[in-house]
């Protein structure tokens, strides 16, 4: 990833609530929009942050008032960097069933993680799976 001079960045902790998550998602999306992100790429950023942050709050921290979610966002016209870390036990993303398999098509889990992988340029989890780094690079041309 090219280390750009980040036009907008945010590093903070939020409580484990969906309201707090959606508030910060709106901040990120506004910054991305201001940086010129639009169309399909903007939709992908929105999907990835929505899925990852709701996962962190609900599955990771289980909406515990004693736990926080750490966020780091950086936005330029070319790159969006999002790091999300919860205080949960983590999970193994590679062990989730692939919801695209015929046997799992109608299952109701694992779809968010798969969408993040499909829509981001780069996705990386830490060893225990309670932190994800997602990067979206603008398509050339």
């Amino acid at each position, binding site marked *: 990833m090219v280390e750009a001079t980040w036009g907008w960045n945010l590093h903070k902790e939020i409580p484990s609530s*969906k309201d707090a998550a*959606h508030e910060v998602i709106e901040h990120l999306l506004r910054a991305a929009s201001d940086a010129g992100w639009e169309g*399909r790429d903007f*939709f992908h950023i*929105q*999907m990835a942050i*929505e*899925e990852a942050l*709701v996962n962190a709050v*609900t599955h990771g921290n289980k909406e515990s008032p004693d736990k926080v979610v750490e966020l780091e966002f950086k936005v330029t016209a070319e790159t969006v960097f999002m790091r999300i870390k919860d205080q949960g036990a983590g999970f193994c993303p590679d062990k989730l069933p692939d*919801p*695209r398999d015929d046997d799992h*098509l*109608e299952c*109701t889990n694992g*779809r*968010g993680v*798969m*969408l993040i992988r*499909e*829509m981001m340029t780069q996705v990386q989890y830490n060893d225990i799976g309670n932190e994800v780094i997602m990067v979206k690079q603008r398509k050339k041309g």
Partner: protein
Amino acid sequence: MIDRRRMVVARIGELAIVRFTDKKIVDSANIEEMGDEMFSLVDKEHIKHVLLNFHGVEFLSSAALNKLILMDKKIKAVGGILRICELTEDILQVFIITRLNRVFDIRKTEAEGLKAFGASS
């Protein structure tokens, strides 16, 4: 009169046409409500066939997709058919990426959806 907040429902015989009121279907409380309102069409109003019209919906999360999957199962269980129409290109891509376009019968317009049911607006 049934009070619905997340959708507007029009009926043509046994068919219900559902239009959503939210531009973004992300808030978990709203998604729960959306699910409850959809499910009640089958459970309480005994409707068998449903056309979900997503006109005006710009974004939905995987939690909302899960409600659609459960709705599809519910309708299939009573021998009905669920169809979807008026998806934006971005949301249609989500259905394609997740291969849910193999689960749902997706039509481009409401008129095409109605035609597939043998109905017209």
